[in-house]
């Protein structure tokens, strides 16, 4: 039985652990501390936690100001509000001057299933990816989540982290290394390479198991840093297979699929993208309903693999 764990919990607790060692860390939230799990930091370090009210634009620019006096601000709200509402503040006030602001988009993708399209971020990778200087990280599980928090504290510059709301399977080990800008091979194979991110890495591993029974060998790569993309390794893992699949809980326009297609645009390789097909989300009574409806399933990956091999 695969072990499940929650990324938001891991994030909130690791932030507290790091806050004990690193006094420059300050945390801002827009009235969602109980969802983003910045509440742990607020409780432990009330003087370094700033409730900014339901005012995301001011929150981002305030974080810019805090970074200008040497703080390491972590800005928290839902992914859709963290990137869409203050887009201009991120572009002009954080990314252009390369300020050390960490933007944490919680409840990303369709993971806030009940709240519907307004609260589901299907295009946040695409918008953040288009901004120069921005680093984008999409952790695969709670174990990697903790390493991501540590790495972004060390890294000097703007970072966007997208965090799934729901419990996800643990797929990585404590002792595996995480480096910003490096992709990790989760399982090897020789016919197809699947570049997946976030929750879709698990879907790719399930697809891999089924395809293995059909005699098809699949390599699964966890792309947790979407920008800067690991150009050399993407090319290397695409070179020796018959086709490439990308898999993300995000629109197929401009996200991981877009990034991989850009890298491989001058290579002779067939690419298929699995993701949300240029549509908004909607409400559902559980996460799985949406995953099935939008085709973010192992079956979708299997179909693409078979198309590539035929």
């Amino acid at each position, binding site marked *: 039985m695969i072990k499940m764990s929650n990324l938001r919990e891991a994030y909130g607790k690791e932030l507290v652990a790091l806050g004990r060692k690193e006094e420059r860390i300050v945390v801002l939230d827009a009235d969602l501390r109980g969802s983003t799990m910045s509440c742990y930091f607020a409780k432990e370090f009330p003087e370094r936690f700033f409730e900014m*009210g339901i*005012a995301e634009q*001011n929150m981002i620019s305030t974080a*810019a100001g*805090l970074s*200008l*006096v040497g703080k390491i601000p972590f800005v928290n709200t839902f992914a859709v509000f963290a990137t869409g509402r203050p887009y201009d503040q991120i572009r002009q006030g954080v990314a252009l001057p390369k300020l050390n602001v960490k933007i944490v988009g919680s409840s990303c993708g369709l993971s806030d299933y009940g709240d519907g399209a307004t609260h589901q971020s299907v295009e946040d990778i695409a918008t953040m990816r288009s901004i120069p200087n921005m680093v984008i990280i999409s952790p695969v599980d709670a174990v990697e989540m903790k390493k991501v928090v540590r790495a972004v504290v060390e890294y000097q510059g703007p970072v966007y982290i997208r965090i799934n709301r729901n419990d996800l399977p643990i797929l990585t080990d404590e002792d595996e290394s995480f480096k910003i800008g490096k992709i990790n091979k989760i399982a090897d194979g020789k016919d197809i390479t699947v570049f997946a991110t976030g929750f879709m890495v698990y879907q790719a591993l399930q697809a891999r198991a089924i395809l293995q029974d059909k005699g098809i060998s699949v390599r699964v790569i966890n792309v947790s840093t979407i920008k800067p993309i690991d150009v050399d390794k993407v090319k290397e893992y695409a070179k020796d297979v018959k086709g490439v699949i990308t898999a993300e809980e995000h629109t197929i326009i401009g996200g991981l699929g877009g990034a991989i297609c850009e890298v491989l645009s001058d290579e002779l390789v067939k690419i298929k993208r699995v993701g949300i097909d240029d549509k908004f989300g909607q409400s559902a009574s559980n996460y799985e309903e949406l995953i099935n409806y939008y085709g973010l399933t192992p079956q979708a990956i299997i179909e693409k693999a078979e198309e590539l091999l035929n």
Partner: protein
Amino acid sequence: MSSADLVTALYFYKMNHSGDNPENPDRDRLILSKGHSVLAQYAALAECGYFPKSILKTTKTFGSILQGHPEIRTPGIEANTGSLAQGLSVGVGIALGGKLDKRDYKVYVILGDGELNEGQIWEAITAASVYKLDNLVAIIDRNKLQASGPIKEIYDMGDIKSKFDAFCWKTFEINGHNMKEIIEVLDSVDKIKGVPSVIIAQTIKGKGISFAENVTGFHNAALTAEQFRKANLDIDNLEL
């Protein structure tokens, strides 16, 4: 030009700062949230020794550190501004940092009156009030013109003072071209504790240049050689 006297009073009278030590963590900060007025700030910064006066001529040209709108890569510039309203929020962040680090610097933010149209301004005004930022001073360059024309005709927000009063700021009103009034108000602001302060400075766009005063077209305009000659004459003949 409408903010030139305010900028002058801040850099040459009020603020604790030095062009020789632009990174001093205890320095007072000036953020020009109405970034299109940056020329006034560049002139003052050069005079204070942040960079050589000779490079002022390169402003807005390719490769210059003096960009069309303020960027922190320019020595003495404290925040990237230009997209309006962000400067006050950045000021809130720097002021919060000052409280946290127990440093007693002040953060001055010059805002345009047209800029007050932006919703983010009112988010920042609220935050400054919630966090009792008495180390934050907003200065409104009330020149009564916005990019498309007179505020009265374009987008009249009415009485600015009463709005700040309602958000629990300490409000001051002055003539933004009367140096005595400017200096006095900047000193009185120091005595305010527990709330942020705003100085509403009544100003004239293009002040001191006969053909530019109160002319909307000089919102962010370059002078021709002939206009420059005339402007210099006008300024030389100003009664101080």
